[in-house]
């Protein structure tokens, strides 16, 4: 994990509330893998005070010219302006500096033998899924299929579909108002997929989901029913981002692997206590079976 005072290479407005920013940070770029994130300090002053977490959206290798310009490898983030921190970021320009920490967290775990991957995104959830798609397509050896199911409120919330198509991902879109793709939500796309000829039961696709909590909950239900593996990326308010402060957390079912050597669960109470996991350090990507949805 590194702390880098990175230079903003670009900060493009994709639509009035969505921006894509590229940050020069070779150390982080070289170690990052999909599902990991950054903690960005958006101001040199003390308001806003805390760092903001952003998924790694893409990692770019430098061209020769770029290396000459000392803007070697960089990490891209895709963000939505929702509050004061992201508002400050939206005003940054090329050449500005932003202090970032990364890469952070346990990202998506990838199986080399992956044949079919279903990526399920809601709104800004596409941020981490793009880097995942890039990695599945470029890093794995065998021919494989990546399907991306994306939902949003209106067409303005549907981002990056051309980017996904460009790298060979099959994209299906749903919007709640029907302004793009089918009218509906992303779980409709998922049910359609499972109901269609595209899906052969037993073919064991790997599912990956990122989006609002409600969506993840619904997606989990559908996928758990199919007895398929699904990794989901969660959000939580954070302070440290490194596992130290215990403010980020999600209630999980104790997994066997969690029991540290020599630890005996004496009581029901103690079992309970092991149920909280830190989104920043133990996550942000969890197995959907782990999570206890309220």
């Amino acid at each position, binding site marked *: 994990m590194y702390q880098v005072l990175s230079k903003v290479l670009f900060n493009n407005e994709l639509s009035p509330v969505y921006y894509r920013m590229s940050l020069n940070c070779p150390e982080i770029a070289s170690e990052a893998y999909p599902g990991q994130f950054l903690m960005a*300090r958006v101001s040199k002053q003390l308001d*806003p005070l*805390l760092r903001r977490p952003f998924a790694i959206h893409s990692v770019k290798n430098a061209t020769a010219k770029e290396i000459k310009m000392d803007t070697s490898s960089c990490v891209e983030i895709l963000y939505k302006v929702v509050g004061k921190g992201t508002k400050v970021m939206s005003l940054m320009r090329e050449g500005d500096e932003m202090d970032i*920490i990364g890469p952070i967290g346990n990202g998506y775990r990838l199986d080399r033998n992956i044949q079919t991957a279903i990526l399920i995104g809601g709104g800004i959830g596409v941020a981490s899924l793009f880097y995942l798609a890039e990695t599945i397509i470029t890093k794995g050896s065998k021919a494989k299929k990546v399907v991306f199911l994306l939902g949003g409120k209106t067409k303005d919330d549907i981002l990056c579909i051309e980017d996904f198509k460009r790298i060979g991902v099959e994209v299906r879109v749903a919007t709640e108002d029907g302004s793009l793709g089918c009218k509906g939500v992303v779980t409709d796309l998922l049910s359609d997929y499972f109901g269609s000829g595209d899906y052969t039961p037993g073919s064991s696709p790997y599912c990956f989901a990122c989006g609002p909590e409600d969506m993840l909950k619904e997606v989990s239900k559908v996928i758990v029913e199919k007895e398929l593996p699904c990794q989901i990326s969660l959000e939580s308010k954070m302070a440290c981002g490194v*596992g*130290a*402060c*215990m403010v980020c957390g999600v209630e999980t079912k104790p997994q066997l692997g969690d029991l*540290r050597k020599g630890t005996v669960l004496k009581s029901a109470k103690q079992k309970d206590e092991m149920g909280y996991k830190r989104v920043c350090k133990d996550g942000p990507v969890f197995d959907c079976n782990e999570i206890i949805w309220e």
Partner: protein
Amino acid sequence: MAFVPPDLSVNISSLTLKNPIMTASGTFGYGQEYASFVDLDKLGAIIVKGISLEPRSGNPYPRIAETTGGMLNSVGLENIGADRFISEKLPYLVDSGACVIVNLIGNTVEEYCELAQKLDKTSGIKGLELNISCPNVKEGGIFFGIEATSAFQVVGSTRRSTKLPLIVKLSPNVTDITVIARSVQEAGADAISLINTITGMAIDIETRTPKLANITGGLSGPAIKPIALRMVWEVSRVVEIPVIGVGGIMNAEDALEFIIAGASAIQVGTANFVNPKATIDILLGIEKYLTDKNINDIKTLIGTLKI
């Protein structure tokens, strides 16, 4: 003439720290979490997250809300308990060469004593910090921390349970902090650290619910620095034992303000979240200040406020 770096060591009772910079309990985990950013043995001491006899799951989520220049937290007592701390976390810290101080939390005088006894027998622990000031749980000791007689009792009993240097951490949520400070000194504390967080609240106006599941939480960060500094000044004038300053210290200037006000050492809390290298930056900044000002021993700076 060869450059002689200033002497940064300070004494907290019988404990000599290589420099006055400590991490504030609960903000630096068990040290390991920050090891990519900070060489743990470079710091005066690492005060670990508050430990209780039994593991605790803490308060419900959400546990954090950002405020202007500060943050509210309601983590509460979440911790892995003394046994697992000793078996799983302490060895790493000891290996790293860090000076380890353990922050203690208990519900009763007896719990504090039992815990102190247990840690007293554990090697690798250099001192104890009695947290009688956590505002986030009814049983977090806050009751002991806002009333002089009970503060006296819990400190006195714990004192008799351990030979380790005993720091007592005070709550700022009181009318007159000097009263509590004096009674804690009377009860045998070796040092006093202050301040813990100040009770605060934030509300989500869309849902009309508190932003913290626990309703209220503890305010920390630069917002509270002027209050912490005032209390450190007030207390250090009336007690004989060393005072350790905590609250909103973000950089070397802040740390120096506390030292000049009377603190023998300082703790860095929320600043770690903002800048994971804050402790080291503060260390370097203090060293530079002393060098620039030709002060060759930091101990001569403590409590030198001209009024």
